[in-house]
């Protein structure tokens, strides 16, 4: 784990841009589908032709409210759009429509799990805004290419309080937020496509000092791994400067993942003078209580509630419940399997966190891309529950399923993996082992409990893994007592 001099305290706040899952843009009827030919989804409003007017998308408002309710935030039933003025070619109006003084979502919070237990991270606000287009800096005869398909895509910018005290906490918060926006289906969370982007405000101060240190802003760090590394690098850089008697310049820095360093992007002193003012094209948005109630009714069970229910309903440990509710697909998968198999919930949890996730990770697959169907996975666990398979033979069946060699029962049949539960057959092997391992048998009789494991192992080996280990164990004990 990353550590730094304990005399310094790290302060981190995050700004996360989530792309809202609408069909059309926030202020126009253009599609926001990813990957279209350049500028084919950029209407007169999006490219800012003179005389056009923005008209707000109801669904974007609904999704923002849904988020606010999910974090227990105050919803500003009267909220206002403002113009954030700056010049850049991928922002054709010369201003971005955003929210400043009266954002749609006010103060809320999110709980994260840290090594020291549960910690509450404040969420200052979340506001609606439009995305900018894309600048392509590849060489177009010494010019820059502009694609405005993304211009006007609805974003919810979620701003945290400077409540995080380590990169690990910041990542825990980010993961929790990522999981939440997917749970409540307001954002697909796709970091590669830029649907979930993170800027981090990082500063350090001598431990015990009240006043915050000068911060730098790390831009566009778009994977959980890079977020942590970028912050670690930046913290070390700041501490080095301060310990040498220097001072931190407030600036925006970019993380270079290849070189593992951050570098100054540009001095934003001037660029930061955005001269916000209320957008005269958009009167205040007023939300009725009935609308809020309607949105509230669409909220699914939230991760924390689900985690608690998994513990009480299925008797799972906190760790298991946490792992299974980390994202909605995993939780839904677990519940589907649990409902359709005779195996105990704990067995389902173990097989998911063990074989299934290990193989998915190794193959870099999502749960939804698993080569093993839910019904076959449930059936595999059934065969463990009805003692057709032992833990070991079940793993062999799992591998065969993974390689798509057939269905569970076919594989058991083809590979001759059916567990021997016939007392006579096991007894024969047990007798054979007792005869062959007189030394260990004596040790057991002399009171060495542990040797039983070795003897059961021998039975399993001689039966090529097919004997029921529990029956072998019981039979050995009976015969040796």
């Amino acid at each position: 784990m990353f550590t730094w001099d304990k005399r310094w305290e790290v302060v981190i706040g995050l700004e996360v841009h989530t792309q809202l899952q609408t069909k059309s843009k926030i202020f126009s009827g253009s599609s926001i589908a990813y990957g279209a030919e350049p500028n084919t989804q950029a209407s007169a409003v999006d490219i800012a032709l003179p005389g056009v007017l923005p008209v707000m998308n109801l669904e974007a408002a609904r999704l923002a409210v849904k988020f606010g309710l999910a974090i227990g935030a105050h919803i500003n039933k009267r909220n206002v759009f403002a113009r954030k003025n700056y010049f850049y070619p991928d922002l054709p109006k010369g201003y971005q429509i955003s929210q400043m003084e009266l954002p749609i979502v006010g103060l809320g919070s999110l709980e994260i799990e840290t090594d020291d237990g549960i910690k509450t991270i404040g969420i200052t606000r979340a506001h609606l805004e439009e995305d900018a287009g894309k600048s392509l800096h590849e060489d177009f005869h010494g010019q820059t290419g502009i694609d405005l398909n993304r211009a006007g895509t609805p974003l919810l910018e979620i701003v945290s309080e400077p409540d995080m005290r380590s990169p690990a906490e910041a990542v825990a918060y980010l993961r929790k937020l990522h999981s939440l926006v997917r749970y409540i289906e307001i954002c697909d969370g796709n970091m590669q496509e830029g649907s979930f982007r993170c800027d981090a405000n990082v500063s350090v101060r001598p431990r015990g000092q009240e006043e915050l240190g000068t911060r730098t802003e790390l831009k566009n760090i778009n994977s959980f791994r890079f977020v942590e590394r970028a912050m670690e690098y930046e913290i070390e850089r700041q501490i080095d400067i301060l310990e040498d008697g220097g001072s931190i310049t407030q600036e925006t820095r970019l993380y270079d993942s290849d070189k593992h360093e951050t570098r100054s992007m540009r001095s934003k002193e001037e660029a930061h003078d955005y001269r916000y003012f209320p957008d005269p094209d958009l009167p205040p948005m007023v939300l009725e209580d009935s609308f809020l109630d309607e949105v509230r009714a669409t909220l699914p069970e939230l991760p924390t509630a689900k985690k608690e229910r998994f513990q009480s309903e299925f008797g799972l440990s906190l760790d298991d419940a946490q792992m299974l509710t980390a994202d909605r697909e995993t939780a839904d998968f677990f519940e589907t399997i649990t409902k359709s198999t005779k195996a105990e919930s704990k067995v389902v949890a173990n097989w998911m966190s063990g074989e299934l996730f290990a193989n998915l990770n190794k193959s870099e697959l999502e749960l939804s891309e698993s080569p093993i169907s839910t019904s076959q996975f449930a059936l595999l666990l059934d065969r463990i529950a009805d003692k057709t398979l032992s833990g070991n033979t079940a793993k062999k069946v799992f591998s065969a399923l993974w390689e798509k060699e057939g269905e569970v029962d076919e594989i058991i049949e083809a590979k001759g993996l059916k567990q021997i539960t016939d007392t006579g057959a096991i007894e024969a092997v047990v007798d054979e082992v007792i005869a062959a391992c007189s030394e260990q048998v004596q040790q057991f009789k002399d009171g060495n409990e542990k040797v039983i494991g070795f003897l059961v192992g021998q039975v399993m080996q001689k039966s090529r893994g097919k004997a029921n280990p529990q029956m072998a164990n019981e039979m050995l004990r009976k015969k040796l007592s």
Partner: protein
Amino acid sequence: MALDNETVHNIARLARIEIDPSEVSQTRSALENILELVAQMEAVDTTGIEPMTHPFDATMRLRADAVTEANQRDKFQAIAPKAEGGLYLVPKVID
């Protein structure tokens, strides 16, 4: 409220408005007049009055989330100064 020339230049730069050196003092006094008006308004007692963001009492109309725009790229790019491969071309910008 008095402004110095540097502030005038700075405001002009932020707004991307070119000001001829001969116009600076004229622009400065025009801006000072506006700020004077603001100062007068600020002197009014507004206790108990809710801040207003828009002059009308209107509230926003919201539209249903539907794709209603068709691709009109060719028409838009026909009036653009430069376009190539579907992209608008602009003088090189580097962060």
